[in-house]
């Protein structure tokens, strides 16, 4: 019994990180209608930025975190301007490929600057782990969960309740019509990428605190996993991303623990396929009926 709970907590450990990354993914997808494959690599940039800021420049923790967020947000805006904006009228797949190219680019820049050797990083979160019964939850996991939850709620409120949020939704549906309403489409999309990338920065920070190591390819796999999480929860849905991320972590952990460590990935994807076959737009995704 205790071990089941322990394994669930292990699931939450990676799940909360997936959830955090998935939030940014889903947000950018929902508004800009593109799979930003470079999202995982912005996480990596965030991780290195934090490292340089704290270990290299000796900036205190809180300003360093803020700096990391700002750097990633600006990077997100720049990437959008340079690589995606010229393709607004191109087919969605063209943008997808450019995003893949962007992902390669960020990785190879990081490789040139920091080389392939992983850098060890000491967590900036000093919260002690908590023992409940016989079960331990690490401080970083608790903070990650809290941060993810806060981000999710804030993002949901932002998108549904604020004017900028409605503008984003309008832009996601019909850019020209949104312009006619007076929405500055470029600015709105920039803002979307800024927020998405800021979320990636936060994810990057939590990631290095959790795993204490940084390398140029660190964002690739979590990026893919988070994308899966976003789809599982219903891509475009903010609470869905959170739910999907948590579930993904837990499914992974439970199948590794009780079925097979070797087939865990296959099981995870198997579950995803099953979910989508029953609910084709993910757990919390809106099932759209096309009006004929």
């Amino acid at each position, binding site marked *: 019994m205790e071990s089941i709970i322990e394994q669930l907590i292990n699931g939450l450990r990676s799940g909360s990180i997936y959830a955090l990354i998935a939030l940014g993914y889903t947000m950018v997808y929902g508004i800009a209608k593109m799979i930003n494959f470079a999202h995982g690599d912005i996480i990596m940039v965030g991780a290195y930025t934090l490292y340089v800021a704290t270990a290299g420049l000796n900036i205190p923790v809180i300003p360093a975190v803020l700096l990391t967020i700002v750097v990633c947000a600006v990077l997100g805006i720049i990437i959008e301007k340079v690589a995606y904006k010229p393709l607004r009228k191109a*087919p969605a797949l063209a943008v*997808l490929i450019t995003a893949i190219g962007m992902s390669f680019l960020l990785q*190879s820049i990081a490789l040139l600057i920091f080389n392939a050797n992983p850098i060890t990083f000491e967590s900036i979160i000093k919260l002690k782990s908590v023992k409940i019964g016989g079960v331990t939850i690490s401080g970083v996991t608790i903070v990650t969960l809290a941060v993810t939850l806060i981000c999710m709620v804030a993002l949901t409120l932002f998108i549904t309740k604020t004017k900028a949020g409605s503008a984003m939704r309008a832009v996601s549906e019909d850019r020209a019509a949104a312009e006619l309403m007076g929405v500055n489409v470029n600015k709105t999309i920039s803002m979307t990428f800024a927020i998405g990338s800021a979320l990636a920065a936060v994810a990057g920070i939590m990631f290095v605190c959790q795993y204490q190591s940084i390398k140029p390819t660190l964002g690739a796999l979590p990026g*893919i996993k988070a994308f899966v999480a976003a789809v599982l929860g219903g*891509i475009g849905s903010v609470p869905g991303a959170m739910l999907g991320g948590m579930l993904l972590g837990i499914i992974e952990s439970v199948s590794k623990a009780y079925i097979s460590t*070797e087939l865990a990935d296959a099981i995870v994807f*198997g579950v995803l396929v099953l979910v989508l076959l029953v609910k084709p*737009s993910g757990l919390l995704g809106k099932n759209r009926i096309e009006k004929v």
Partner: protein
Amino acid sequence: MNKGIKGNIRNRNNLINKKNIITLAVIIAVYIACVILVDGGILNRQAKSLLVPMGINIILAVSLNLTTGFLGELSLGHAGFMAIGAYTGAIFTLHANMPEAVEFLIGIILGGVVAAIFGVLIGVPVLRLKGDYLAIVTLGFGEIIRSLVNFMGITGGAMGLKQIPRYSNYTWAYVIMIITLLCITNLVNSRYGRAIKAIRDNYIAAESIGIKVSRYKIMAFVIAAFFAGVAGVLYGHHLSIVKPGDFDYNKSIEILVIVVLGGMGSIRGSVIAAVILTILPEMLRAADDFRMLLYAVVLIAMMLFNSSGFRARLEESGKLPKIPLLASKGK
């Protein structure tokens, strides 16, 4: 009237016509050129060693174009089918004891067929999904296949299969590539191809004129899987070793990049892009540390050049000759 407005030209109504004869002549000429280049010692080793991968990449790209370009469904699991073909073919030739050509031919067909069977198994449930959901699930299936291959005994697990006979040479690759090109071009310009394209353009309308959407979706998916399997067999017998890691989603993405760069729904574009993207990383070898960086930059630049309307503007203003290559056939 402006030329650009015209659609594709009507099908020729006879087997023997000017276009087909020219095509045949080109096919033979290219092969002879290959023979001269390779056996005449004109190409260096590096270039020679790229011929087979080039052929394999063309087969992969053209077959993926069927699902992605013509059917309009984004598939990120093409490498999974390639893996099935590669393993099936390798296991067969490793165990069979027949003359080389016979053994290899059977291996190729077997690899394609088994991949196609998986295409059905996967396609039937999955093709009910749309767009990005389909993409992620195909990616998932690619990974499941990789996982299973890694897990099974007969496939050699993580260590893979070794000492697969090195049967693939440029003749095999070329002939199979041509067969693939012909089959898929012919398919696309037939009633089956029209049904597939109609589904892409508007599946509701396609249904309304009596096309069974799921049947044709699966048909396209399965045919693509078959050729991916065939390419996998060639791949295994080119490297003489196959490992699960060779067929992860990065490989699928690599193929997708070729298809998109070449132009969705453009077979010629796929061929040209496959050639360019096979050679490009090797050309960049001289750049040492900056190789991946340059590759990424070139990739982004090509996409921007091709799809941002920049090229269209240049072509219109007459500053750039109209290149039929890398057609940006998208919206």
